[in-house]
């Protein structure tokens, strides 16, 4: 099966890319939002929103997705020490955009031990905190298909994206001082290929396609899990960030924190909103008003001048005050 070259994005990661030449999309005309660029022109067209669905209940923890990610993105995660757990590397890094997080859960209801494995990485929020926080014009962009991408040539390495992200995902490189995270394989999606991790996943726990299709697929998975006794199974597509373009099927959707601290109600922190909203706008206005006001006052108001009379009085004061050398001063 190959992808239809007339589609604006791949509908699955399983199919091969189109054989016929296909114009790459995800160019400048597909950008709906860009960091520090409030007056961005409207995009030329609306692409079909895409999504990557991660079905945690189907994951076997093989890390093929991590390998595929490192291979496609040509990153070389540092070799680390085994500290007695399966997580490797220890955290997301500038060279590891996705990470299998393993957590052990003693289910008090069933008495069963459960191994909850979640593929962590950028969630591609509809309302991205990183993009809101970023001060560098065009360093973070959001395409009309929902992918949030870092444009590294514009990145200045300040780490504000780390501050803004509700999921603790971006990592700033110590070598080139630029921030890195999952791109949702924007460079593959642009030419009709699904993300590398989804392509590599042997159980199809990771699937990719139009967000609508993925939600339909997720609903089927949830119904299946419920029929098998997971009554709290559900979709994790958090509304606080406007929904995400990477989303999960969880067996315990009522307790997302079980999955290595997946936040229950992620949203852009009100502190970040206050910083990037009111503080930025009012702060600059107040500074501008103070600067303009003082210049105008300086030009038109009467200056505070010393009079010739005061100079004379000073001389008089000095004459009468300076003690004569050798005499005892009072």
């Amino acid at each position, binding site marked *: 099966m190959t992808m239809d070259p007339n589609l604006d994005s791949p509908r699955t990661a399983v199919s091969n890319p189109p054989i016929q030449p296909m114009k790459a999309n995800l160019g400048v005309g597909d950008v709906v939002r860009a960091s520090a660029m409030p007056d961005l022109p409207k995009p030329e067209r609306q692409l079909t929103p895409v999504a990557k669905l991660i079905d945690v209940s189907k994951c076997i923890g093989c890390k093929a997705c991590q390998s595929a990610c490192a291979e496609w993105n040509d990153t070389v995660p540092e070799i680390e020490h085994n500290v007695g757990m399966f997580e490797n590397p220890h955290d997301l890094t500038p060279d590891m955009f996705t990470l299998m997080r393993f957590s052990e859960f003693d289910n008090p209801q069933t008495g069963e031990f459960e191994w909850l494995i979640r593929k962590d990485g950028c969630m591609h929020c509809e309302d991205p905190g990183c993009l809101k926080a970023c001060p560098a014009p065009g360093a973070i962009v959001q395409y009309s298909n929902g992918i949030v991408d870092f444009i590294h040539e514009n990145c200045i390495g300040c780490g*504000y994206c780390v501050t803004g992200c509700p999921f603790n995902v971006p990592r700033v490189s110590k070598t080139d*001082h630029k921030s890195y995270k999952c791109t949702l394989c924007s460079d593959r999606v642009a030419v009709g290929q699904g993300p590398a991790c989804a392509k590599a996943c042997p159980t199809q726990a990771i699937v990719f396609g139009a967000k609508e299709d993925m939600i339909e697929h997720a609903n089927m998975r949830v119904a299946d899990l419920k029929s098998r006794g997971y009554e709290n199974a559900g979709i994790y597509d958090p509304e606080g960030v406007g929904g995400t373009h990477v989303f999960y099927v969880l067996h315990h959707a009522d307790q997302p924190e079980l999955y290595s601290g997946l936040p229950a109600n992620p949203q852009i*922190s009100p502190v970040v909103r206050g910083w990037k909203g009111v503080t930025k706008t009012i*702060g600059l206005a107040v500074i501008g008003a*103070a600067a303009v006001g003082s210049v105008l*006052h300086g030009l038109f108001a009467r*200056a505070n001048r010393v009079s010739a009379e005061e100079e004379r009085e000073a001389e008089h004061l000095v004459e009468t005050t300076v003690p004569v050398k050798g005499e005892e001063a009072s």
Partner: protein
Amino acid sequence: MTKPLYSEKGDHLESTAPVRVSRYRGYTRANHWVTALSLIVLLLSGLALFHPSLYFLTGLFGGGQNTRWLHPFVGILLFFSFFVLFAQLWKLNLPRPEDRTWVSQIGDVMKGNEERLPELGKYNAGQKGVFWGMSILILVLIGSGVMIWEQYFPDLVSIPVRRWAVLVHSLAAVAIILVFIMHVYAAIWTRGTISAMTRGSVTGGWAFRHHRKWLREVAGREGRDPAE
């Protein structure tokens, strides 16, 4: 010799006709200008990352990456430079009873009716406000700044704390820019002030008008030898 209350030991009359009073020695002036220059660099580089409409200011420093790198180091320079300045100036900036009167008659200050104000030592309440405002804000800025220094302290504080730090840093920055504008404005509006930081001295009339207690004290100990 009695301890000076309103002047530094080094303040002295440079000449008596016309009167010129030395206000800052060369060392203090150099210290002031290093601090001032650092503050201006910090202000420009900080504003560049504060608001998208000012991002073009990164061009002054060779682009966004350089601005991001430079800003915290200049912050460290300013912190230590200001600290040395602080050590020299803090004593005469302690509040005194006449400051209260001065503040309550701020209208006369603005109109330049200084004959109605009490006689003052080396600093008036406004100058003291700038001094303490700068001192506190610089402490807040260096503290919050280190917390958001991605290059060297990425894990110093948790991400929620970092969010507060960046908010506090930007609020304190706005405040210090306002203090800076007031400082520069007051120095220009009050004619004859700037020579205190360039030549190091002011005219007798300036001292008589604005800081008469200071002038009296400086004149009073002139010619007196500590040995006598």
